[in-house]
């Protein structure tokens, strides 16, 4: 694990957890962090070096995202799937000149391809895309990575779409409770060149699994931070003459988080390790994301409860973790859907 260990050290060296009340980075600091991250190889973790990234294995990727999630500061390496490397935008995406949104919309409901709403059709020299009511998180990105179903035959294709091309309409932008923005995408026969088809069914499934691992990793980080801070607070806070840490109600809450963290850690790492070994890992990634995101939510909920009135205030990071973890639980497969799929296996 020495390669991973080295990454972690770097990460800690240049982005300390810092002031818990900070929620935003101003432009300059952000830019300097981006530069630093690129320099030490903590950027575009899925892209090969040839495409300007610092590709690492899934185990290392999990450990890196876990570390970045330990702060409520909105800073982490962008998730740029490897399929993008084949496209002309790869280098600009890797160096941050262009930004990317994964327009996976309804895929979040089921965590699989059955919910894709966009449709594509072969046209002269490329494709036409159709679809409406597609929710996109980060709609201000320059490029959308969008799965679509073939109008005939039902094949799945993955398209890289410029936001500004004709036929793409982005409307009804609004803020999420988690501080991201979301907007509704309409594709009205939008024409794109054939080089914009960057992947097929397996690539879309791979991105879902990879994003599930990333969510699991972030969730581990959130839970570690919440548990750590809760232990600290419980040791120091005295009520009715005794520290909170002496109360079984508090102890038991933290125990539940710890047991859950223990199980989620190994489920996540095992799935990531399997991915690195070339073994099947989709099932494990889905399970890890489901359990880890739920655990992060409960860890944040526990931290809030233990911190009392301060817990729900914006002066501590827990309410932010709480909102974020709630969203993570809803991305790339609702809990009941992941359960259902596991229950349908023979």
């Amino acid at each position, binding site marked *: 694990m020495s390669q991973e260990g080295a990454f972690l050290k770097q990460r800690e060296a240049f982005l300390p957890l810092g002031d818990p009340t900070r929620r935003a980075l101003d432009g300059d600091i952000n830019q300097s962090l981006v530069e630093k991250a690129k320099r030490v190889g903590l950027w575009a973790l899925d892209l090969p070096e040839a495409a300007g990234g610092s590709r690492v294995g899934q185990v290392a990727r999990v450990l890196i995202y876990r570390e970045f999630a330990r702060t409520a500061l909105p800073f982490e390496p962008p998730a740029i799937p490897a399929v993008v490397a084949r496209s002309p935008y790869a280098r600009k995406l890797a160096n941050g000149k262009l930004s990317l949104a994964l327009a996976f919309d*309804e895929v*979040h*409901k089921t965590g699989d391809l059955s919910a894709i709403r966009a449709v594509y059709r072969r046209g002269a020299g490329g494709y036409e895309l159709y679809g409406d009511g597609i*929710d996109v*998180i980060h709609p201000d990105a320059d490029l959308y990575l969008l799965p679509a179903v073939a109008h005939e035959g039902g094949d799945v294709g993955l398209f890289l779409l410029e936001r500004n091309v004709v036929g793409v309409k982005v409307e009804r932008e*609004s*803020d*999420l*409770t*988690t501080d991201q923005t*979301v907007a509704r995408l309409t594709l009205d026969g939008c024409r794109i060149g054939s080089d914009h088809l960057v992947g097929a069914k397996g690539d879309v499934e791979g991105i879902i699994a990879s994003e599930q691992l990333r969510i699991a990793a972030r969730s581990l980080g959130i839970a570690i931070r919440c548990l750590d801070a809760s232990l600290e607070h419980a040791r120091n806070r*005295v*009520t*009715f*003459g005794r520290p909170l840490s002496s*109360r079984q*109600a508090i102890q038991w809450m933290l125990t539940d988080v710890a047991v859950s963290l223990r199980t989620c850690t190994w489920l996540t790492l095992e799935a990531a390790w399997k991915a690195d070994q070339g073994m099947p890992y989709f099932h494990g990634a889905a399970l890890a994301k489901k359990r880890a995101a739920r655990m992060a939510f409960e860890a944040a*909920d526990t931290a*809030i*409860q233990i911190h*009392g*009135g301060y*817990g*729900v*205030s*914006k*002066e501590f990071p827990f*309410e932010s973790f*709480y*909102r974020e973890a*709630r*969203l993570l*639980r*809803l*991305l790339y497969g*609702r*809990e*009941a859907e992941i359960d*259902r799929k596991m229950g349908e296996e023979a």
Partner: protein
Amino acid sequence: MDFRLSPEEETLRRQVEQFVREELIPLEPVFEGAPDIFEGSRWKSRAKLSRDPEVQRYIAVMEGLKRKAEAGDLWHLDVPKAYGGREVSNVAMIAVTEELEKASVPFELGNHVSNILYACKGEQVERFLLPCIRGEKTACFGLTEPGAGSDPSMMAATAAPDGDYFAINGTKMFPTFGDVAGFVQVFARLPGTKGREGVTCFLVDTGHPGYRVVRSIGTIAGSEPCELVFDNCRVPKNQVLGEVGKGWELNQAWLGARRFQVGIRCHGTAQRVLRRVGALLRLDPREHEKFSASLGHFRGEMEALRSITYHGSWKADQGMDARFEAACVKLFGTELLHRVVDFALEVAGPGALRKEHAIARAFRYARPRRIVEGASEIQRHMIQRALFREGIACMEL
């Protein structure tokens, strides 16, 4: 045994039902984009003082509703007859709130006055109580401190007698509207006292010398409670509310009376969320098939919450000790709302986390409910204490 409302209570409930149907439901689209400030805390002090024209527009609508309610004799329902109110029962007020909660418009039939203010005596009545009843003034509540919440022994704020005055020193965390209320009901202890002994409640105008708002604190729910500092704030003796040294009992009484209203509010918010879920599921038979058992489960839990809320209020109306029930309702109601909202998000997906979405609003609103006015752990503590003191007898009737 009789599970019905009395004829008078039923008449009132129907009046409110009609008001909700005719006045509030039609306004629901208007309030869809209203800021969080109108959620939970409803259209209180801060909103009223805002100069934001958008907020002012909502306030104007609220004022119109208020006039209609007054015209229908639906104002001052829970104010004692001695002060010109209708003095309806606790059960009736639960039924009233249940009806109001059927609309998402954050309007309530006021003016509610914190019950401990009825301890006002002499000139306090004219100066503090009546202006609140008339809606001319609002009060805030200063109890929690940076190092003290539900435990009186940790309270550090002091009130040192000094001739005809008390000099109050200390910091109070989280009074909602501490920056805009007319006065604060603040708790401090006499020097040299311990535990609940010596805790005294004072009525202090917010502009009083020595009273300082340090900052307001953002929260997940959009409310902005304050940090207040009392820096040698000298208050005359006749601004002690109730008796010197009996402040903790006032605090307990204030909390106790609110629990059942908290219960029916949680019930109302959760009902509206479940209606949204029901509507979503009706659109999609496959989704309905997947989630109908969970929906049904929560509908059943809602009935359970409703039943203990009415029962506890009935006990309070009978003059029986309803503290056990109050703790059960606060605990069960706030925890249930949390779970209902969680389920609703699971069904509705990430799009329902849009800030203005009813489910996202409920998500932000629900979280502090399990902490404020006595965290779930405090409620559990009170329940177990009653259990070990009285055994299962504490659950008779």
